[in-house]
């Protein structure tokens, strides 16, 4: 499979954008400018980027509490996202959802989600709708290792399999459910083993290698579009930060952290692009500057936006 230069550059740009968005969130949260909880995607950028590169606006995704990366990779607008983090009226959800509930239904983003494992049934339902309406759209469900221990995982994968739904279940296995290493919470090493229980293909891939993720999800999406049913892809990855901002991550072995930080997906891609002369160092610097610029503009937009008006409190509870 050959990947065009444009595609490789778009991977790099997307991953950088996610990284800088998250690093900005760290800064803003520490400065007390963002309320609530923020769960950051730093270190896992390759998964969302490689996966969403196979999707169009007609395809659906469901995301998680650690959702910024998925939203950016699926085309979410940075200014509306940042404004939502600030709780401003101009945000994606008019300031009523916040970091954990950003959605853009027109882009097929059926929301980040504050409940671990809740995206799985929703993604399954979106896949059902794709099949029912006889479109060739697919539904991609992002979830973590912890969510694979929930009943929603079982019910969703079982239903998707029996109805042959066009769904792709992407498990971001970053090894930890908050403070607990999954070794303590599951008696298997590879979550993809669970696919066999549902009669669907399952595979494990290096989640820090954007090209590998892209390639694997491409095949799963192709399979789903053709009507051949769902698949489970486990991406082994690592979150560089704590579970949420403010969690120092004392439960992690510093040596393990060090090993994984060396496997940073952005650095890995950057090295490959330079090695194969896809880009020059100058171009990299330029792309970095550009990505920083976009984030700064989004922050400016958010800061200049107004708080929601008081009557927003009671609107949008019901439609119509």
């Amino acid at each position, binding site marked *: 499979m*050959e990947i065009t230069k444009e595609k490789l550059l778009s991977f790099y740009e997307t991953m950088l954008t996610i990284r800088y968005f998250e690093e900005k969130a760290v800064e803003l949260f520490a400065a007390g400018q963002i309320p609530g909880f923020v769960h950051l995607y730093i270190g896992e950028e390759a998964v969302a980027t490689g996966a969403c590169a196979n999707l169009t606006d007609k395809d659906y995704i469901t995301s998680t509490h650690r959702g910024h990366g998925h939203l950016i990779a699926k085309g979410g607008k940075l200014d509306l996202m940042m404004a939502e983090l600030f709780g401003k009226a101009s945000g994606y959800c008019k300031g009523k959802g916040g970091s954990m509930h950003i959605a853009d239904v027109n882009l097929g983003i059926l929301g980040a989600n504050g409940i671990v494992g809740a995206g799985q049934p929703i993604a399954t339902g979106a896949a059902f709708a794709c099949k029912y309406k006889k479109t060739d759209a697919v539904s991609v469900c992002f979830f973590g290792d912890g969510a694979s221990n929930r009943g929603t995982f079982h019910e969703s994968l079982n239903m998707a399999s029996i109805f042959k739904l066009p769904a792709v279940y992407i498990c971001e296995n970053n090894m930890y459910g908050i403070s607990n290493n999954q070794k303590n919470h599951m008696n298997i090493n590879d979550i993809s083993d669970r696919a*066999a229980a549902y009669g669907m293909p*399952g595979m494990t891939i290096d989640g820090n290698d954007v090209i590998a993720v892209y*390639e694997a999800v491409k095949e799963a999406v192709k399979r789903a579009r053709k009507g051949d049913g769902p698949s489970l892809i486990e991406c082994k990855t690592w979150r560089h930060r704590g579970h949420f901002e403010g969690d120092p991550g004392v439960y992690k072995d510093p040596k393990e952290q060090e090993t994984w930080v060396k496997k940073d997906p952005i650095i890995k891609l950057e090295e490959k692009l330079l090695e*194969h002369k896809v880009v020059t160092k100058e171009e990299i610097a330029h792309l970095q500057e550009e990505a920083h610029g976009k984030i700064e503009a989004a922050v400016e937009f958010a800061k200049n936006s107004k708080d929601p008006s008081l009557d927003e409190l009671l609107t949008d509870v019901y439609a119509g």
Partner: protein
Amino acid sequence: MVTVGIIANPASGKDIRRLVSYGTVFDNQEKVNIVRRILLGLAAVHVKRVVYMPDYYGIVPRALDGLKSQDKLPLEVVPVDLELTGTQEDSFKAAQIMAECKVGSLITLGGDGTNRLVAKGCGNVPLLPVSTGTNNVFPVMVEGTIAGLAAGKVAGGSSNHPQAVRPSKKLIIYLNGIPVDIALIDAVVIKDVFIGARAIWEVQGLLQGVFTRGEPHNIGMASIAGNLLAIGSKDKAGLALEFGEGGSSVTAPIAPGMIVPVKVKTYEKIKLQQTVKLHHTPCIIALDGERELAIKEDDEVQIELTFAGPSVIDYKAALQ
């Protein structure tokens, strides 16, 4: 003291071929079961010590843990001193350590990919490769108990059959004159720049191939050679070919359940110590079914056929 090594790869049987073809999901619980039977086989032929590669899942400790109390093993089971990386390195390094501490034989659980790594490190220790991977040309389908008995007899010197241990072939890959890697079955050159999801399952982009065997009953790329010339694992010859139009067309099982037509422009039988020059760069070289080496435009690559592969235990002969 009669010592046997065990290298059970927890990552074998989980790659993208579950998605793009019909590869078996080899869950680690089954590997645990096989190791349990191997241990009982080893104990029955008076092996006193087993050294094993530790892994994140703990295949061997779990195998011990699940033994019935009446089956208490009269042998010592210890891990080799290895800092785990969770990568391919682990199998290679474990094999190296086992060779250094002079194990009498070594049992591997994996596919062609796993055995290639072990072969890089195991020196002249006789291998008994038990198949638990996807494309299995090198390892054999053998019941764990029997594998334990056979490898134990070889290690203890109680197997006198002249065919119990035989040499194998290997390909040596030279990059700019320096040996950088090996393959036990095949080296296939692909028109690509990045390694991605590692496994190969497409015939598009195939450029060149060098094979140690030509046996039509083999699965994977080696089946292409098998459909052109009959070359057994004991024959002092190999095969080199150029893919493309204008020559023969063979139908080959290149992955589980994938039987596809392949165009071969030219092919020739090669002798031992003959080298094949690679003339398409940049490219990727897949070794024993997995994309491993990214070759740059100005690199020079040669592939040599040798009979310097690992010694392999023929379990049927060993037990006679």
